[in-house]
Each structure stands twice: as structure tokens, then as C-alpha cells.
């Protein structure tokens, strides 16, 4: 069922729009009071239901009479606490920091993780996690991973950065889930690479999550949608696959330092992975050209600025940035070449008769 053209395009535009709201401490206090109120109301409802239920049961028992029925425990046995998996983390490269309810320390080798424990890596840093199931997770530089659950549901959240996972085959009722800020990834015994970008991009409906699957099947959920990604596939499908990050050197694990609060060390720029290139949409290319011109203009590099603006005007004459590019050229030329400035101003007035810089352009045209 495909949408009529402009409805589909309008939906696409609205999806790209980012929305935000930050809850305040006041909102939080109010929220906790709301939760208490809701729980109180729920308990009252349950109390009424229980009362009527007991009363009905008593009546039924009286009606049935003195027939006794032997009851067996429905559960069939004692309740067994869920078995917790063992998860051990070690640093790689320039290391990582480990945070739990007691504080933040450098990550030592073979540190046992508990629910709520968080590992954060800086530039050049990394960490490897080994789960007793045989699953291995490699956390790359500038990444943050938190353990959310460690029984039959193995669950992590990746707030930012890159995670490579080799997930051991899952048993019956076992699950392996990773939450990102805007998606949930669930795997079925596979190898994959998951990344959270620092900012949304135009492809993929603005999601910051990127997934590449090497083996098996991974399910991705965003809001109310989900997709199954197979081996060799990439998600979102309209974003180009992320370039593999060069492997970090793996020295022998370093002994933990003595409990000093440490900021994650910064590696030299050379150690940082090469920046990845997002798909080059037309609007992104236009933005890039325009920004190149603005930067060059700010740095006093007139030739580069003029060239970038001219490139934008020639290649994308219908771009919403063309008017600004013409104004940029006009101003640069006014300082260096009055004849060309007047020509540029005249072109501006011809094409943007009601433009925001028409008064300025007219002044340049009229100048001696």
C-alpha cells in the first residue's frame, strides 16, 4: 500500500524533524508523586476485586458443601531464582573506565560485571567482555556500554560508540538484546557490528544506530517498527554500511591502578579511527559547499570562498543556499574587485529582486 507522492514526501520530511524535551527535577518529583498515586489507586481497585472474589469464593464453597478437594501447588515445585550469567570485562588498547554504584575506577583485567555496571572507553581505548555462554563483545573507542540484565535475558545498552559482538547460540527461552538511544537490537546467535553515531543523519529516518550483520539474523526494533537483518546485510538499508574501524593494538592487560579517579585518557589524533562518510545526499553536499565558503571567508581565504560559492551556484542553481552564496560573493568582491562586485550585485538583483540583500546589492551597483 504506497502513499500518494506528496503524502509520502511530507511524512519523510516530518520524520527528519528532531524533537526534544528535557524533563526537569521538578518534573521528576511530580512524576514520583504520580507513580505513588497510581499505585495507590491500583491497590484500591485490586482490594475491591479481592474482596468480591473472596466473598464469591466463600459463597461457592458453601453452595458446593462439604466436598473436600486436595489442592496441589500449581507451580509443581519450589520457585527457583533465575540463574545469573558470569560476565567478565578486560581493557584493550588505552583501556577503559568501569562505573558501578560504588563509583568509577579504571577497568582492570577480568572485572566481573553486575547489572547496572557501565564501561566507558575513550579515544584509543577499548574493552572486551566475555559471557559464560561463550558470547564475546568488543567495545571500541569512545563507547559506553551498560549491563541491564544477566540471566536468561542478556541485555545491554549502548549509549554511544561501536560494539562488535559474537553471540553464542542461544538456548530455549534465552534472549540477547542491546538497546541504543533510538532502537533495540535482538540477536539469534550471530556476529554483528553495532554503532551509535554522535548525531542523527538524513538517511535512516534520522536514527543514530547502524548495524552490520556478519552471521545469523538480528532483529532491530525502533519505536513500533521492526526489521530482521540477515548475514551480509546492513541497517538502516538506505544508509551506506559503516567502514570497519582499524583494529586497535591489544597489549597485555595492564594491572589496575590504585583507585585514583581517572578521566579516560585521550589518544593522539592518529590513533583515532578514520571518520566514516555518511551517504552524500544533495542537500548535504550543498551544505558542505556553503560551509566551506563560510569557513574560508572567516579565515580570510577569499579565493577558496569565492570558488566554493561559485561551485554551489553553478551546480545547484535551485538550492535554497544560492541566494546566500551570491551575497557572500558580492561582499568578498566588494573588498577586492569593484568591477566584478558590481556584476555580481547586478546578477543578484536580477535573480532575487525581493531578496534580503537587495538594498546592499543596489548600493554596490550604484557605487562609482
Amino acid at each position, binding site marked *: 500500500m504506497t502513499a500518494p507522492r*506528496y503524502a*509520502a*514526501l511530507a511524512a519523510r520530511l516530518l520524520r*527528519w*524533524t528532531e524533537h526534544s524535551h528535557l524533563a526537569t527535577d521538578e518534573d521528576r518529583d511530580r512524576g514520583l508523586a504520580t507513580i505513588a498515586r497510581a499505585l495507590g489507586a491500583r491497590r484500591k481497585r485490586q482490594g475491591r476485586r479481592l474482596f468480591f472474589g473472596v466473598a464469591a469464593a466463600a459463597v461457592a464453597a458453601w453452595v458446593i458443601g462439604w466436598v473436600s478437594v486436595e489442592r496441589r501447588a500449581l507451580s509443581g515445585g519450589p520457585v527457583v531464582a533465575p540463574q545469573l550469567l558470569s560476565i567478565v570485562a578486560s581493557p584493550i588498547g588505552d583501556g577503559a573506565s568501569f562505573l558501578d554504584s560504588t563509583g568509577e575506577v579504571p577497568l582492570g583485567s577480568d572485572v566481573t560485571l553486575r*547489572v547496572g555496571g557501565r564501561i566507558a572507553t575513550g579515544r584509543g581505548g577499548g574493552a572486551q567482555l566475555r559471557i559464560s555462554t561463550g558470547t564475546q563483545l568488543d567495545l571500541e573507542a569512545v563507547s559506553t556500554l551498560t549491563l541491564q540484565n544477566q540471566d536468561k535475558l542478556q541485555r545491554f545498552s549502548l549509549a554511544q560508540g561501536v560494539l562488535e559482538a559474537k553471540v553464542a547460540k542461544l538456548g530455549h527461552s534465552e534472549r540477547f538484546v542491546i538497546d541504543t538511544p533510538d532502537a533495540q537490537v535482538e540477536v539469534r546467535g550471530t556476529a554483528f557490528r553495532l554503532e551509535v553515531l554522535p548525531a542523527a543523519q538524513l538517511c535512516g529516518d534520522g536514527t543514530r544506530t547502524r548495524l552490520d550483520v556478519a552471521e545469523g539474523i538480528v532483529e532491530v526494533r525502533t519505536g513500533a517498527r521492526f526489521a530482521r537483518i540477515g548475514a551480509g546485510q546492513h541497517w538502516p538499508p538506505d544508509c551506506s554500511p559503516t567502514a570497519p574501524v582499524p583494529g586497535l593494538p591489544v597489549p597485555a592487560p595492564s594491572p589496575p591502578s590504585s583507585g585514583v579517579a581517572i578521566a579516560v585518557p585521550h589518544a593522539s589524533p592518529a590513533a583515532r579511527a578514520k*571518520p566514516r562518510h555518511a551517504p552524500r545526499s544533495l542537500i548535504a553536499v550543498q551544505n558542505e559547499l556553503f560551509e566551506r565558503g563560510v569557513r574560508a571567508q572567516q579565515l580570510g581565504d577569499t579565493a577558496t570562498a569565492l570558488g566554493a560559492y561559485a561551485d554551489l551556484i553553478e551546480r545547484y542553481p535551485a538550492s535554497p*543556499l544560492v541566494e546566500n552564496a551570491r551575497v557572500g560573493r558580492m561582499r568578498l568582491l566588494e573588498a577586492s574587485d569593484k568591477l566584478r562586485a558590481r556584476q555580481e550585485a547586478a546578477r543578484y538583483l536580477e535573480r532575487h529582486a525581493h531578496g534580503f540583500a537587495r538594498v546592499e546589492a543596489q548600493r554596490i551597483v550604484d557605487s562609482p
Partner: protein
Amino acid sequence: MPSTAQRRLRLVVPVAEPSTLPVLSDDAILAGLGRRDAAASVAFYARARPVIDRTLSRLLGGHDPDYEDVAQGALYEVVSSSNSFRGECPLDAWLSILTARVAYRHIRRRRLERRFFGKGGPETSLSAYSAPAAFASRQAVDRVRVHLDRMDAKRAWTFLLHDVYGYTLEQVGEIMGTSVSAAQSRLVRGRREAHERILTDLELAHFLDDLSEVP
């Protein structure tokens, strides 16, 4: 001045740092809520609030004057219903649907000219754009909103929930209190109406034509 790449690598710290919160899984949180455990309530707020905010920011806009009231209403609704959550779908999806339902009911009751986004309108930040292009895109978004406001409300909502925010027809039906077939019918008609309205808005149509060249 830091380079663009360095700026983009800066960590955005969430409102509540994990180290200050009780360490509980989703199941433990829901179980703790049932026991009225204080730590579970705090953890549930931290768990549910971001999902509520994500949903309401889209449906109402972050600056809607009723935003916080609706958010509290959604929180009340999810807590009241939390003992009926059986894990048939991800918790986030469940929270999102209940929140959307509360938002829809609120919008229906509200008698304002701009029915969808309130006076302020949603924050239309398009992060990949420079200032002039972002301005053009914001204007386009504003115009789309005006057209949606003028449409039949139920059709517009169905179009938004399904085509923009990705809810299935079943979920749309659950949110709007209607059957799947009714939701489907409204979706078809809503799309057609949106298309025809935009067709008469030449500047917006032209902008969207340019947008169609973006892969």
C-alpha cells in the same frame, strides 16, 4: 576552537546518571512496582520517562503548554496498567503506545485552532542542515503542519501515527480506539487528502520535489 569532529564526539550526559539510580532490570522494576518499592518507583520513572518524552515530543511538540500535564497523565496510565504487561512486545513499544493513546485523547479534548502541535509548535531542529537550509526546511515543516491541521482530525492522526511515527495499523487502532479496518480506511483517505492539499501549495510541492532527489 574544537574542530567539528571533536565537537560531535562530546558525550551527552542523560538527565539521570545510571550510577545514582538503583540497579534493576525491567522485570525487577515491574515486580518492585507491584510491591510499591521506593527504589523500583525511581527506577521506573528513569526507565519510562525517556520513552514518554520521545513519544510526546513528536506528537505534541516539546513546547506544548500542556506537555507536562500530558506526560504525567501518561505516567499515571502506564503505572496503572503495568501489572498487565506480559512482555508480548518490547517494553518501549508498550510504553510508546499507551503514551500515544493518552496524547490522542488529550488532543481530541483540546479546542485549539492548531490541534496537533499547540501554540508553540514542535521544535523543528534538523541537525544535518546549515542555517539557511534549515530555515527553508522549517518553513516547509510549518506548512505541512498547517495542512494537517486543516484536514479531518482522525485521518490526519492516522497518517501521522502510521506514516510518520511508524505505528502499525493494529497499534493505531489501539491508540485511537478503533478497528484495524477503520484505521486502514482513514489512512488511505488521509494520505489522499494530504497529497491533494499539498498539490495546491506550489512552493511546498516544489520543495518536496527537491527533497525527493535525496536518497
